[in-house]
């Protein structure tokens, strides 16, 4: 097990190196420069700024400088926001994004699983059709539509919950709900398919032939086996939400990472682009590793080498 994780960590570093390098050169291909937007600057002032941040050096030199600093743990400072360290900017912004993402994932997974399981157990009944309808709507209607509807009816008309901003638990409900719709739909659809597949397996008949009650057959033999593939989609789904979602953060005025990332691209704020990309990648790679380990825990057939059996 330790060897497996160690090997994976090595691969993760290689992956990260490739992503970082690729993003760096792609970013340099972007038109414009960080200081072009500010019209009041003279050419000389721009030259001085470029010189200060090393932007007049040839791109390969900039690349090696950046990578050198990165290894030392220095991700640089923002060009736009008063020279603030990028790591601080991310640290400040990740909180709301992560909280919102985790909430949406938990809500979405629980409701999605219930819908999916109910649909499979009541296959070809109105419950099944209703659940499928919800799943199709959830996948095809974008989250900002739900966000708008919720804001208008729950926030403005009923005045039950605040329409926007980020100031305590009350403010989490609407954005988390809007985000979770997609998770509900995806998980429900997936779980339904998997449940139906498992219910048709011979070992379910074996379990029934042992005289086990329906509840035990479904709980111990069906759901557990149906969950295995669902775990794999849950990892990437969660990380997408946790690292921030531009649209929902913008609609609900949540001070999150997604919004900052997009604005950094339009402003050519190189260190912020780089740092956010690296942060996303690290999160993603770690979650995939966790999913792989978890997979082995719930499915003995793919327990990784070094484990028993």
């Amino acid at each position: 097990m330790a060897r497996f994780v160690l090997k994976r960590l090595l691969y993760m570093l290689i992956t990260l190196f490739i992503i970082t390098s690729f993003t760096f050169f792609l970013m340099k291909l972007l038109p414009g420069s960080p200081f072009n937007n500010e019209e009041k600057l003279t050419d000389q002032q721009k030259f001085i700024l470029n010189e200060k941040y090393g932007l007049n050096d040839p791109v390969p030199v900039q690349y090696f400088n950046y990578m050198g600093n990165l290894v030392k743990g220095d991700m640089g400072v923002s060009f736009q926001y008063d020279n603030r360290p990028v790591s601080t900017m991310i640290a400040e912004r990740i909180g709301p994004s992560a909280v919102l993402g985790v909430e949406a994932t938990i809500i979405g997974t629980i409701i999605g699983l219930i819908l999916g399981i109910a649909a499979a157990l009541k296959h070809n009944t109105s419950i099944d059709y209703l659940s499928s309808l919800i799943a199709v709507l959830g996948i095809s209607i974008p989250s900002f539509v739900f966000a708008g509807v919720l804001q208008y009816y729950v926030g403005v008309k009923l005045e039950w919950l605040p329409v926007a901003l980020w100031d305590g638990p009350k403010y989490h409900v609407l954005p988390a709900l809007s985000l979770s719709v997609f998770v509900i739909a995806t998980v429900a659809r997936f779980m339904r398919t998997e449940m139906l597949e498992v219910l048709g397996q011979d070992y379910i008949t074996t379990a029934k032939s042992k005289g086990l009650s329906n509840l035990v057959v479904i709980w111990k033999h069906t759901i557990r086996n149906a969950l295995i593939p669902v775990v794999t989609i849950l990892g990437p789904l969660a990380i997408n939400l946790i690292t921030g979602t531009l649209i929902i953060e913008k609609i609900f005025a949540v001070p999150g990472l997604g919004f900052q990332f997009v604005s950094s691209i339009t402003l050519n704020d190189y260190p912020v682009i780089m740092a956010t990309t690296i942060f996303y990648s690290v999160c993603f790679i770690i979650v995939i590793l966790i999913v792989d380990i978890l997979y082995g825990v719930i499915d003995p057939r793919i327990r990784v080498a070094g484990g028993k059996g």
Partner: protein
Amino acid sequence: MKNILELNNVNVSFHTFAGEVKAVRGVNLHLEKGESLAIVGESGSGKSVTSKSIMRLLPEKTSEIKEGEILFEGRDLTKLSNREMEKIRGSEISMIFQDPMTSLNPTMTVGKQIMEGLRKHQNLSKNEAKERAINLLKLVGIPNPELRINEYPHQFSGGMRQRVVIAIALACNPKVLIADEPTTALDVTIQAQILDLMRDLQQKTGTAIILITHDLGVVANLSQRVAVMYGGTIVETGTTDEVFYNPKHPYTWGLLSSMPKLNSADKELMAIPGTPPNLLNPPKGCPFAARCPYAMQVCVDNMPDVTDVTSTHKTACWLLDERAPQVEPPEAALVGGAR
């Protein structure tokens, strides 16, 4: 009461989009205590459906036991509630399935899968159940049962898995064991081992066995009595000797002729031409009439009555009517040239 299990005029139908499929049509069977009965027939003859209807394991939504009674120790299983049926499944009647590769839960240790039934039916503690599970694995011939009990199905070979399946079925000392093609999915060498094991276990435990198969070799090995099924009905039943050496139904002749024999290496294997009847729209006469080389008009029009050849040997065929022409079975159907 000699008969532990009795099926009287059982009819089972499936409801499909195309209409009602009458998979089992008026089956009469009985099983004596400790005896071994084989149900033989080709795919779609209704043998698996018959066995699953005894266990009430057919899909509830799409299938229905339309008529008849299934008496287990005098109780009609078709009338029991699901709760009552759960108490019988696995403890009084249990079942072995065809494919050991798919009939075990891949994410549960074999020990747990054996213990589940024990704990439910016999209220054993965890340790008692574990001890019993180890003994069961020993009984079915799995080496190192203390270690293997904690392993998962994928760590077992096909033959070993079928032994585990048998151990699960025998866990609570059932009075009836239904084996639905228990050796079909196994290698020939392993088949013989599993059959030996089943014969052995039957002698040790006194469990009555219903063996469902299309393999006549297996029947000869294991069963005292045979019921031949075709088109959802039983066409011939008798002791294994009677059915093998003195078959009366042309379908049984066909089955026996299509079995490879030691001295027929150079001859082409016989096949029964045609396909089984469509049970969506079953024929009103003998189901075999369309494929029977001896069919008469009466066969097409009317279902034949059951004729008693001996007190144990019964055949449903118009050829046995006193008005019918005398027909000799084909030479290929005579096993070992007897009689």
